[in-house]
């Protein structure tokens, strides 16, 4: 079943459950939350001190020149709608509007906020908010705080990742930092603070001002963003389905094949929230790696060694991640040991370097994914709105 069809079906079922009287008030609220989340588009926040780049990124992501070149710096949101439309909130509190995307002269009226409507948003399944702020810790922090409770995906535009940006960023909510893209307008080799890369899921290097050439990234920014959005939406769907599985006892045809995804178990001894968050991170990581590598395996390259190396890199990254998630060893010692075992075996298989080993690696990775998933799905709070996109 295609994901979108699955989504509308899940939405329907959620609505019907919300109206039934077989579930508690609390569960109903949760159900409504999940429904809303599944229905609403992903909100992408475009942040950072580089105004020109932010506006260029917005245009690029929408695939349209929504903002005029050389327009003034301004905070704005782009929402879904049938036709292009712009509303300007002027400094004196009055409002001005046009039935098109803004022009430079329209924006030049000295407004501090613009609300734009674009049909593109529906196609992309996302809406945007661009926050304008000066390059100071306080302003950046304020922007991040505002964004922290609202946005699902952050895109940070920078020229040099200044100390002020680093301070603001590292102090921002985890929710913002979990799904984030960094856009740097300089050359990778000139970039001083290499440690920043580990902070972001994706880093895009772009040439110096005005040249819109894409430097280091393999895929375009839009592709990267779409991947992250798809991932977040898939996560939402997964949690919705889990919720359904728990409460909709009458639902026989779950979109997720029940044989591969064991039912969630409510344990008496509930692992605490932090551990769940860590497990969510691990699951997310393993899932993404498995997806990527297993798809390569479907059409394996001739050089087995290169693929084995990919497996090893992925497993090493997983083992490293595990090292930074201390609760997992305490709460799921088996899983912890199995991740390390799978890592060890993958390393050895890589050095043996035989063609047939790629299959073994693939099996290891998919086993690991399934096991992580089982553990994750068994967590009591998975399926709530908090448990969804953040992890």
């Amino acid at each position, binding site marked *: 079943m295609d994901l979108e069809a699955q989504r509308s079906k899940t939405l329907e079922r959620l609505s019907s459950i919300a109206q039934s009287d077989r579930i508690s008030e609390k569960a109903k609220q949760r159900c409504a939350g999940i429904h809303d989340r599944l229905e609403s588009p992903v909100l992408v926040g475009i942040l950072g001190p580089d105004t020109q780049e932010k506006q260029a990124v917005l245009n690029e992501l929408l695939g349209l020149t929504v903002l005029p070149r050389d327009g003034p710096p301004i905070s704005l949101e782009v929402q879904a709608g049938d036709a292009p439309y712009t509303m300007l909130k002027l400094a004196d509190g009055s409002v001005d509007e046009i039935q098109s995307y803004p022009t430079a002269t329209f924006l030049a009226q000295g407004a501090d906020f613009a609300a734009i409507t674009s049909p593109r948003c529906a196609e992309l399944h996302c809406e945007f908010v661009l926050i304008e702020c000066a390059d100071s810790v306080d302003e950046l922090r304020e922007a991040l705080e505002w964004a922290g409770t609202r946005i699902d995906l952050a895109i940070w535009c920078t020229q040099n990742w200044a100390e002020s940006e680093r301070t603001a960023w590292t102090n921002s909510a985890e929710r913002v930092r979990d799904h984030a893209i960094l856009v740097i307008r300089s050359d990778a080799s000139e970039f001083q603070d290499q440690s920043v890369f580990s902070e972001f899921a994706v880093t895009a290097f772009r040439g110096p001002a005005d040249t819109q050439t894409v430097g280091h990234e393999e895929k375009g920014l839009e592709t990267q963003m779409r991947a992250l959005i798809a991932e977040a939406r898939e996560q939402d769907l997964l949690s919705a389905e889990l919720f359904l599985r728990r409460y909709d006892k009458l639902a026989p045809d779950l979109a997720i094949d029940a044989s591969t995804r064991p039912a969630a178990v409510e344990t008496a001894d509930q692992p605490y929230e932090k551990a769940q968050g860590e497990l969510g991170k691990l699951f997310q990581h393993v899932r993404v790696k498995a997806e990527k590598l297993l798809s390569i395996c479907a059409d394996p390259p001739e050089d087995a060694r290169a693929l084995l190396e990919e497996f090893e890199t992925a497993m090493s990254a997983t083992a490293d991640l595990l090292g930074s998630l201390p609760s997992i060893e305490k709460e799921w010692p088996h899983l912890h040991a199995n991740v390390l075992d799978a890592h*060890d*075996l993958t390393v050895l298989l890589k050095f*043996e370097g035989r063609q047939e080993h790629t299959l073994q690696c693939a099996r290891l990775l998919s086993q690991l994914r399934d096991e992580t998933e089982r553990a994750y799905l068994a967590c009591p709070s998975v399926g709530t709105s908090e448990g969804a996109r953040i992890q």
Partner: protein
Amino acid sequence: MNMLPPRSAMTPSINNTALSAFGALAPLQEELTQLVEKLEEIDKAQSRASGPKARNLLENIREFEPTVTFIGQVKAGKTTLVNAMAGYPDLLPTEINPWTSVVTSLHLTAQTAGKTDECAFRFFTNEEWENLLRYGGRLGEIADRAGAASEIEKVRQQLDELREKSRRRLGKRFELLLGQTHRYEHVSRELVRRYVCLGDDFQPEDNLFSEVTETLQNDHEGQFADITKTADITLTGASVPMPLCLQDTPGINDTFLVREQITLNGLRGSHVCVVVLSAQQALSTVDLGLVRLVSSIRARGIVIFVNRIDELSDPVAEVPNIRTGIQDTLARFGGPKDAEIIFGSGFWAQSAVADTYDALSDASTETLLRWTRENLEEALASASPQEVVWQMSGAPALGEAIAERVQAGPGNHLLQRTRAALTNLHATGQVVENLQSPRRDSLRSANLAKSEFASQIEDIKSQCKSALAADLAAAAHSFDQRAESAVETFVERALADLATHLQQHDTQEVWTYDPVGLRVLLRGAYQAFVAAATRATDARLADAANAVSACLSELVGDNTIPVTIRPEPAPPAPAAVELGGVIALDLKGSWWRRFWLKKRAKDAYVAEFKKLLLQEADALAHQIKENCVGAHCTRLERIPADFIDQQVAILFDDRTAEAPTKDVPQRPRRRPIPTRN
């Protein structure tokens, strides 16, 4: 014994500062000098209170001597390069026999230090020599484990011959020399050659087991080389901004694996490792021994120098291929694939240092010209030939790469630690001042507070200590489990591979299995331990600093003057150099072949190999556990308590201020040994 007359002090050949390879260390030295000045001021001004701690910090800085270890392929021109980098061409003999080569440390320091040239040569101890001769060193151990009695016999025969040779060279009672150190207050090339000798009996590695020709060329050259373990040479006229130690190791040219341990220990104390490859061999020979040796060191601690590009006919075209070849090999065999690679020629560097170019052959000159045309920068266009050759030799680039790593690693650590200590010194100094100020009501109340303060401090100390001990024990336990499971998985894989091999081939076909995977796994386990231990120590130090700050603030009793103590950075973990040691599976030459062919039945193969592999892998894991994990835990465990003691010592008794933990790599402190003439 025939001693040479003392020589006048060595004079470096460098008189042109442009040729200093390590000029890039100057900024670090400057920062250290600033700290020294501040500390000296404190030492003078507050001799009673803060003096001892300031003096300790001063000593830490003065003893700071980053160590750069050079390891290399046979004939990679390692020693020529070391000589040139040090600025003393021809100091160390370059034609060394692998059997007699020695770990030689050149301690370079600038003349202003007010020291004199000196050198010390340490011989093997009785036990080390016995271990070598009676058990055949590490090779004997492996043979023993493998149950290869006749192999041991063969090794012993070879060693008996060597012992005979030493006897002839050194006299009948040469064993009495063992354990001694010979020390001189001068340095000369002749002297060095007596201990670090030339290879009168050099044989290509493969033939070392065969008969050796025994002709002594010279009564003195190489006289003591058989039994010399390490040489320490201090040169005071070197062109370096700060003290620096260049360590020349025998590296992998060690047939009986007896010096391997010494090389590995050299690497343990080392801050930067330079792997010297020969340009012509770099592509053709997969030097797994070298990759193995550096397998424990992170890529950022390693610089690869591809030497002897002077022997390439077309360096401009060949260099990119060599670079890719090296990177491929490293990636394939678990080496430091991101290490920086520099191309050059120690020979050119030596010519530049000596400023004589007569020795350059036509071919070499031609190569130099080509390389220069390709790489010459505008700025050098008007430079002297000496400077151009020097630049083209790669020596300055190597020196810069080394300086960069020293600065980023141990240099930065020393700076941060000293700065934090200085701030703390200042903060506690103010507390003392405050307590002694006439504004205090009476001395008595202060004393009362002090006794209470002391017990609070003791509480904090024991809390931090036990908390950290628990954290470290957990980290060490995780390592044990990971290492154990890694060994199991590894042996399982290897045996499965062996079974496949036996199915597919006759037993006449020698089976080999690369143990690199085991090293990678154990390294991973150790790195995970280090990360956890560092996290725990930092956290406990921060706790300690906060608690002490609160206590001190309370002691002062004035809310307007909060006392802030900053945590000082914990020492970095040592590299698990044990990983570089040879294990049975590394042996791929004739020895392994003989061992393999000796077994007959297939079952016997699997059983014997299982035993051998388990023992070898376990031993490796155990060594890391003892020498690295255990030692690091012991070192870290007392850090919070020591740190607290250092902060509060001046408040209790001026004389009890304790020495801060030394940050300097443990080099054998030179014992006061009677100087020889």
